[in-house]
């Protein structure tokens, strides 16, 4: 094989690998991007019905209740403008607390309750998850208008 051919074959292999990677990335991106919505946006019906998304805000004080099995919990996430009831089965993170920030990932059910698959809380006492802070700020800006 001539040198030029060899280089062409190598170039083609490299391009094929890159094309494969690009295709995988685009495919994976389309399927797995998780969008974030505030409780106000969910109330306005902007959140998707079929796919998972994230919500964030404060856990409303006094809203945490536990089911008879001891594992199912329900609480309300609020951005001070709108409230969104959330249900979750499993252990809550150490820093989950009423009146504090929280972010949850899951889907909206037929009963308009957010069925969380994952609950994330902040990592220390003073730190608010950025998404939760964003939800509050947005709701306050909306209220002022």
């Amino acid at each position: 094989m001539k040198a030029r051919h060899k280089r062409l074959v190598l170039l083609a292999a490299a391009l094929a690998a890159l094309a494969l990677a690009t295709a995988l990335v685009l495919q994976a991106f389309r399927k797995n991007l998780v969008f974030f919505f505030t409780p106000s946006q969910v109330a306005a019906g902007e959140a998707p019905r079929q796919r998972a998304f994230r919500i964030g805000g404060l856990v409303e004080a006094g809203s945490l209740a536990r089911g008879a099995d001891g594992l199912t919990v329900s609480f309300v996430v609020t951005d001070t403008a709108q409230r969104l009831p959330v249900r979750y089965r499993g252990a809550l993170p150490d820093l989950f607390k009423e009146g504090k920030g929280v972010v949850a990932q899951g889907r909206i059910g037929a009963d308009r309750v957010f069925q969380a698959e994952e609950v994330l809380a902040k990592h220390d006492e003073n730190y608010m998850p950025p998404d939760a802070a964003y939800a509050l700020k947005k709701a306050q800006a909306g209220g002022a208008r």
Partner: protein
Amino acid sequence: MIPELGHFALLLALGMALLQGTLPLAGAWRGHPRWMALAHGAALGQGLFVTLGFAALLQAFAANDFSVSYVAANSNSHLPLAFRLCSLWGGHEGSILLWIQMLALWTVAVALFSRQLPREMAARVLAVMGLVSVGFLCFLLFTSNPFERTLPAPPDGRDLNPLLQDWGMVSHPPILYMGYVGFSVAFAFAIAALIGGRLDAAWARWTRPWTLLAWAFLTVGIYLGSSWAYYELGWGGWWFWDAVENASFMPWLLGTALIHSLAVTEKRGTFKNWTALLAILAFSLSLLGTFLVRSGVLTSVHAFASDPRRGLYILAFLGVAIGGALALYAWRAPSVGLGGRFAVFSRESLLLLNNVILAATAGTVLLGTLYPLALDAWGLGKISVGPPYFEAVFVPLMVPLLLLAAVGPLVSWKEASWRGVLRRLRWVALGALACAAALLLALQASWMVALGVALAAWLLLGTAAEAIKHLRHHRAGLPLSWWGMVVAHAGVAVFVLGVTLVKGLETAGDHSLRVGQGATLGDYRFDFVALTREQGPNYVAARARFEVSRNGRPVATLHPEKRFYVVQQMPMTEAAIDRGVFRDLYVSLNEAIKASPQAASPPPPEGVEPARDGPSPAQEGAWVVRLQHKPFIGWVWAGALLIALGGTLAAADRRYRAPRRTEAAASSIPLVPLKVS
């Protein structure tokens, strides 16, 4: 007084670094031997002063000097000494100082072991490292001075985040930074070679041991972080594709590509430009990682800082360092020349494929990490890219890489025959397929498990085939670099096996249990036997006792804890793990719940209320307990350690250590002239 001295030492270090970064470079350009010779002394001086500054800050932590604001913000007098000392890197300022300290260590090492290098090369390498150090020292001294005082001093410190109060905190950051920063040596060698216009086999041979060592450190650092997350975060995960983890993983991927392409450049003189580019990019990703973690653009366990001034500085520094290096590359690299030719089927092309795949993987991880940040920064919406994306992209890219890893070492340089290689790999392929078939048919395993095990078997058997071939032919002394390759590839196989089995077969269950109750997970029965109250140095804890049995026979006693750290008012789950060769049993005590479900006033979510006296409140109620069975998780750690061991073995190869007489003669004048008239 000592903090002021530390501050002063760092200022002197900055002066030394400026000297080290400028005069030797000018000397190499103008041909002044004396200016070039300055690099050596300046590097040692800088190392000394940085170390003095570092020691001064350590002393402030050891002595509980809370008049130093940084100590007050990150430590506490109740903290045990070891954790007080490692609180030094518990925050932003100290982490940057640790970065600089690591850079100083590498710089001193290069200065001490660069005697067989040509004078110009040594001067330029040390100068580039000096300039990097100038950038970081300026950042530290002018935006994040760790020695700043608050007067009057607060009576006690704010304490270290409880998540960080662990032995992992002692070892993980220094080792990880050792790896991160170690790529600066490869970077400096590439820049020096580009300036000198000599990218050749000798350059690759000088760069290789440094790169291998840095890469091995980075591997151990990532392993330490991952295993720490596994037992400390309390839910048994060990890799989250979190932006901070990705920040260390991207340089690792490019570093892996770099050690392979350096092999080609050294052995065959090919890929020179590409190798230089990889060296630049690997260090650029290390810098980017520092920026991501330290500027506060991410907010997770690791991001303590949020000061836009610092972010801007790092961004500008990144721009100058990466932009400058790439501009130099674009200007000088085309003149370097192509190197030896090779056939389509040769070790060179397989290693090229290895590099393309690794670089593409690093690119996809970079995209997944930066895309959400970019969208957020431009106000285009908030999204998150989680593990499903990374797994969907990473796994298909790794399959061809693992296939290649078994083939590559069996293929000869320059030109190889398909037939010879196929003949050798026949049995290997058969073995791997047999494993997959056995798993699918006999054990009803899933496709993913069968694929992972087959790949691991393929790589392990292929590496064994390579080892047998060589051991048969060269009885006497195979080079350590060859052993390093064999050990690292076997480590990858062990790692893949561990990841496949733990991901495919792990089981977990959440239960609400009272003392006296129990639950089962697979064959194992976990009995909640007792709950006691413990007093730690800076926390109170509820400590449970679980008796684990399998088919009636006792297996282990586990003591998971729920701690409450008093100073930071923070609860913490301290999981208990029974480790074994084939499985870990993992119990975590998640939260206490009150006796009556759905009470009018909801129960406090955190486990232990320290204010309450008498018996622990949880004794009345139940606890949410998570039980986990993690098969083969230990193999993940063993694989990672084998990979790092392979890198260390290769770095220790004799041919990198023995000063080559021929070259010492070629460079004519040694660094320190021996004949003084």
